[in-house]
């Protein structure tokens, strides 16, 4: 049996340098739409509404409503901060109660069970960040059918399974920010590696694909080395970053962190190896987690949307959907202190472009 295994594996195991140039490990197969290399890109058209609608929803306009927030998983800083944004909005609005509850691991099955139980318990609205866009769709449709308002944030489901999706940033926008920042730090010909959570996480896979497309278009000489998985585990992320540094030595100029767990861990690895300034870390991370490295001049920047704002916007959108002030066909939506948000891609509310935090402004943010 062992021999068979070895033979089977041997054939497909060792990735060749050729393979490295064909597709970046960890990307998905969806079509990409890289932005222009420089200058403002025109905002995508709102297009025709393609979200779903709750059936026979009672008139909840202006009434007190109870909403449950079901993130991908609980116990990570990222979703703790989106939840705090929701509480902020709830406090401002006064007529919405939001509870955050979800699986302890980013597990589709458990998340579905959570949604299902909350449908039965009779909430007025569901806010979700999907672990899998397709897997969660049937249960969300069930929620719509039960007259519950459904709004997604952070990670979308199939469009017809929810009403609106608050998009923190368009994938091609994320890709552009990341790669432009990387190129500016390591030069146009540097080599870099990627630390992601798992290859099956849809957002990360999407961004990696968009990053590849954008890099081929705008930074063709940047050299992709490899992608490693590190779950949502900061010690593992640290170890993986460490291994990359050891493996490539001087060749490695930059590490891209795809999650808010991986990026600070990679920064820590760079700092502990005394490679500040020699290896750049560019990635998505909460400003608070990156302050020690950025203030210590080891790392130049971190990229992220404001996660508190993301949660805040999601709660605002939920309220407006319930009140009927956000309807199919609208092109903008007013979201409290965030002002007017743009509607894109038929049924998505765009939070804005991802922000690059640097030493100059990072201390102005606390999330």
């Amino acid at each position: 049996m062992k021999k068979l295994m070895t033979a089977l594996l041997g054939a497909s195991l060792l990735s060749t340098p050729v393979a490295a140039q064909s597709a970046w490990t960890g990307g998905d197969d969806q079509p990409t739409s890289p932005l222009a290399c420089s200058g403002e890109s025109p905002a995508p058209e709102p297009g025709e509404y393609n979200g779903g609608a709750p059936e026979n929803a009672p008139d909840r306009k202006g009434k007190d409503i109870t909403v449950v927030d079901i993130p991908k998983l609980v116990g990570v800083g990222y979703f703790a901060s989106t939840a705090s944004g929701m509480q902020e909005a709830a406090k401002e609005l006064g007529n919405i109660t939001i509870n955050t509850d979800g699986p302890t691991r980013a597990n589709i099955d458990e998340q579905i069970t959570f949604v299902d139980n909350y449908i039965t318990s009779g909430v007025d609205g569901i806010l979700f960040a999907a672990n899998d866009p397709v897997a969660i769709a049937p249960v969300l449709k069930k929620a719509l059918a039960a007259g519950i308002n459904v709004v997604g944030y952070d990670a979308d489901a199939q469009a017809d399974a929810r009403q609106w999706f608050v998009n923190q940033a368009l994938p091609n926008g994320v890709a552009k920010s990341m790669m432009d920042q990387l190129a500016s730090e390591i030069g146009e010909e540097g080599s870099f590696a990627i630390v992601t959570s798992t290859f099956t996480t849809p957002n990360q896979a999407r961004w990696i694909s968009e990053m590849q497309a954008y890099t081929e278009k705008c930074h063709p000489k940047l050299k992709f080395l490899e992608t490693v998985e590190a779950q949502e585990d900061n010690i593992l992320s640290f170890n993986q970053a460490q291994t990359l540094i050891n493996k490539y030595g001087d060749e490695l100029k930059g590490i891209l962190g795809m999650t808010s767990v991986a990026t600070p861990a990679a920064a820590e690895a760079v700092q502990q190896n005394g490679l500040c300034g020699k290896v750049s870390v560019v990635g998505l991370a909460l400003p608070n987690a990156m302050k020690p490295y950025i203030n210590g001049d080891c790392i130049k920047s971190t990229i992220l949307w404001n996660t508190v704002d993301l949660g805040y916007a999601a709660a605002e959108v939920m309220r407006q959907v319930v009140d009927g002030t956000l309807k199919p066909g609208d092109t903008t939506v007013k979201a409290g202190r965030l002002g007017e948000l743009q509607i894109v891609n038929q049924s998505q509310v765009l939070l804005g472009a991802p922000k690059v935090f640097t030493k100059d402004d990072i201390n102005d943010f606390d999330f």
Partner: protein
Amino acid sequence: MSRRSFHAVSSLGQEILLVVVILALFAFVGAVNPRFVSENNLTSIFVGNAYIAVAAIGMSLVIVSGNIDVSIGALIGVLAVISGLLVTSGYPIWVAWLAPLLIGSAINALVGCLIAFARVPSIIATLAMLSILSGGLITFTGGRWISGLPAGYQLAQFRLLGVPSPVWFMVGMTIVAALLMRYTAFGRSVYAVGSNPEAARASGISPSSVVVRVFAIHGAIAGVAAVLFATQLQVIQSTTPVGLELVIITASVVGGVSILGGVGTVVGSTLAAILFAAIGSSLIFLNVSAYWLRAVQGVLILATVLADMARRRRTG
């Protein structure tokens, strides 16, 4: 005379096998990519996984005594958070370092009592603890990470004589535990209880009290692992790493600790933990496709297990 040395070899077989495999791995991967055996990489292999090796020491004690603990990952998570909360709420750093040992010891002594006196099988008691600890952790922290750790708290980043402290802990605790298991009456009684509890009772050893003490020690060791885990980075995650318990149990078992109790040494489990860390790192160095990484790890674990089985059958 030759007979005696033969037995000594056969009882050390697993350790020697592991050392050979580890050296072979280092030699092979080092030949492909010399950076693998650079001081830097060796250090990171040891440092990054020392907490696993440390936790596997306690796990080995538990398994030798004829029990198992599937809640170890959750316990390490809980103790790490406790340590972090203590230090960020102003307690002295040494309190934050010591508290996990004591609390871990207390929690597991309680589990030990459930196993020894209430006769709840260890796998059930710890399965239940896994639920209670991991659920309780989220309830308690609400998922917030602990950051803003004071300077001087990062025990795992200290170096002594140029060697990082986790390595000292791993090596030191392995040696201490190995000596404890071999040269103290308590250590021997752990083997006795795992091998034949009824006979242990007849020899004047109380199996119940041995089991409780083993779990208490295991809890304290988990506390050390938790401190190493918590002080490695600038932030402490408030969830437990998924599947950590399986990694630790696998290290113990592949290290030659018989799951049926009574056999095994802590040296083996530490070597196995090092081997797994080295395998993880080497696959990246060998450019094994990241998609196939876990499959290769699985094959290697299976191969180690089967090789061990074949060796045991040869030596009887």
